[in-house]
């Protein structure tokens, strides 16, 4: 029998990869930040579904910390103006 959680996780991972691929064309920095933000949010959903599928809360804890770090890095980079024009 196909597990609903696993199918959801697979779909979210595929969509997250699509969002990551959107980072490459850009063209501006803000486009890249939006794409990275979308990818992180979808990866958070995938990690949540995977932790339910595996029945492991430790994995959810680790993913929460990683997601918070990714968001923190993205926000810090977005706040810094940098030399590149938007």
């Amino acid at each position: 029998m196909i597990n609903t959680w696993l199918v959801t996780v697979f779909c979210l991972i595929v969509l997250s990869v699509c969002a990551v691929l959107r980072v490459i064309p850009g063209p501006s920095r803000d486009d890249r930040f939006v794409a990275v933000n979308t990818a992180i949010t979808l990866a958070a959903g995938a990690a949540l579904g995977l932790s339910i599928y595996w029945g492991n809360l430790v994995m959810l804890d680790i993913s929460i910390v990683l997601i918070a770090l990714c968001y923190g890095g993205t926000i810090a980079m977005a706040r810094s103006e940098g030399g590149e024009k938007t």
Partner: protein
Amino acid sequence: MTDLLIDATMFTLLALSVGFAGIGVIGLLVFPDIRSRMYTATRATVISICTMIVAVIVYALSMIFSGGGDQYPSLIFHILVLLCIVIAANVLLYRIIQERIKRTSFCRVSPQQKEERE
């Protein structure tokens, strides 16, 4: 009957989650300007993760009421923390990028457009 109802609810919520995530990514790939891309991608993906979290809460509550272990209240607490992080980060990033777009679009007004506005 109750199990079937809970399973149907969870399935519907998970399908909605994948659907909204797909809308967000399609918006990110298809829309022409950054405002529409940002609007669609951010909101649709936040709705997607919210529906997924509701599905997990339904699952945890069903396990609690059927005499599950102590890990399910902890699971609910963890996913509420995750929800707070996701929403706070999305709102913050959305505002930062929106302010920058406003600033750059204000700076890009040509002198001719400025005269027309005045």
